[in-house]
């Protein structure tokens, strides 16, 4: 048995939906938060109409205190869809939640008109309705944030792949220019893509350039050493280039032993060594270019 509070809300939603929609739209269109630059009026009208219709269905059977039940599934799905589309349209999270919260004013006015003389009942009804709309508004914000998080994590994955390009500099010579922070996850991607490229090209030398890595601490050094060791197991020698003076001093103080690895200050130096080691035939490539 639904509690007494909510009866009037149900009645208003069922009987005065049209008037309610009119008042609500008027309020929304007059509000200073209206973003007519981002959204057409008829789209707003359609969304408002749909939410009221769904609310009516949900409140007929569903509880007003909890919106996680099956009665509320349609409303939740609708709000999730609205949040997503508004996030894409460029609305802020508070703009998006305001869509739900702005229903309070016309709804409260209807309840007051209906229950005018009964202060006790009106208070109960307002509390129940306010609580419900707060839940729905918060849910909308939650969905909005979730939509944003999905975008961020997708971009993160894309960035991770984009930021580890293995390029072929010459026959048998690969280069891996590293830029930014080398955390464990990214290093894993780096290592895999380098090893994969070694298999594909049969390269015998890989140059790992750390010019764009601002800090080389023991973890980064360890990752580099592991990558070098793995490449060596596959028959490719690694040269680490881009060791700037400050990095060289820091590595010495840290006590990291890079003496087993060929290191160079610049990518150009490393490339020159690699060409010598592979006995590269310079005339062949330059000949092809002319």
């Amino acid at each position: 048995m639904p509690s007494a509070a909510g009866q009037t809300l149900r009645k208003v939603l069922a009987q005065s939906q049209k008037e309610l929609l009119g008042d609500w739209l008027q309020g929304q269109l007059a509000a200073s938060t209206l973003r007519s630059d981002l959204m057409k009026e008829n789209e707003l009208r359609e969304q408002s109409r749909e939410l009221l219709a769904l609310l009516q269905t949900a409140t007929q059977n569903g509880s007003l205190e909890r919106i996680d039940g099956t009665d509320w599934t349609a409303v939740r799905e609708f709000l999730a869809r609205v949040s997503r589309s508004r996030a894409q349209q460029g609305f802020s999270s508070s703009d998006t939640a305001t869509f739900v919260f702005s229903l309070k004013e016309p709804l409260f006015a209807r309840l007051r008109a209906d229950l005018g003389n009964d202060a006790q009942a009106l208070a109960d009804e307002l509390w129940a309705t306010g609580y419900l709309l707060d839940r729905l508004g918060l849910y909308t914000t939650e969905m909005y944030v979730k939509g944003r998080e999905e975008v961020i994590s997708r971009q993160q994955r894309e960035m991770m792949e984009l930021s580890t390009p293995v390029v072929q500099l010459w026959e048998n010579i690969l280069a891996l220019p590293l830029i930014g922070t080398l955390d464990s996850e990214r290093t894993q991607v780096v290592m895999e893509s380098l090893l994969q490229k070694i298999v594909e090209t049969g390269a015998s030398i890989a140059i790992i350039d750390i010019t764009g890595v601002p800090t080389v601490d023991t973890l980064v050094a360890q990752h580099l050493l592991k990558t070098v060791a793995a490449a060596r197991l596959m028959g490719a020698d690694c040269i680490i280039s881009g060791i700037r003076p400050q990095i060289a001093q820091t590595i010495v103080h840290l006590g990291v032993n890079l003496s087993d690895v060929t290191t160079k200050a610049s990518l150009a130096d490393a490339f020159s060594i690699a060409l010598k080691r592979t006995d590269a035939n310079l005339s062949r490539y330059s000949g092809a270019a002319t």
Partner: protein
Amino acid sequence: MAVVHRSVLPIRSQEDIVRVRKATRESAVVQGFSLVEQTKIVTAASEIARNTLDYGGGGEVEVTLFSEPPRRGVRLVFSDKGPGIADIEQALKDGFTSGSGLGLGLSGAKRLSNEFSLQSKVGEGTQVTIARWR
């Protein structure tokens, strides 16, 4: 010692370590550190921050910019409420690690800093202070 600026950063995730490095570098730049000095304190901060996260289970760092003429510097106090370090002498030895790292983080950070101190109580936590000045 005159404190110019003081701020506290949490160390709860890998991203926080990146933030600590960034804050340390910015502080070092404000204090007029050379590129080599900047890199040294940033690297030391990175080592200790990672220890705070990996071994201390997370914690925080207090970054202080200080000035005691003619010296200007950056002091970082890392604290966690982790399991603590039983044998500090061993922990500071090159190549010793209770995890899977190179075992050079603590000792390396000590060599990269002008000032280094480590207090730890088993079961209560660890506090590491590093500072560098110019």
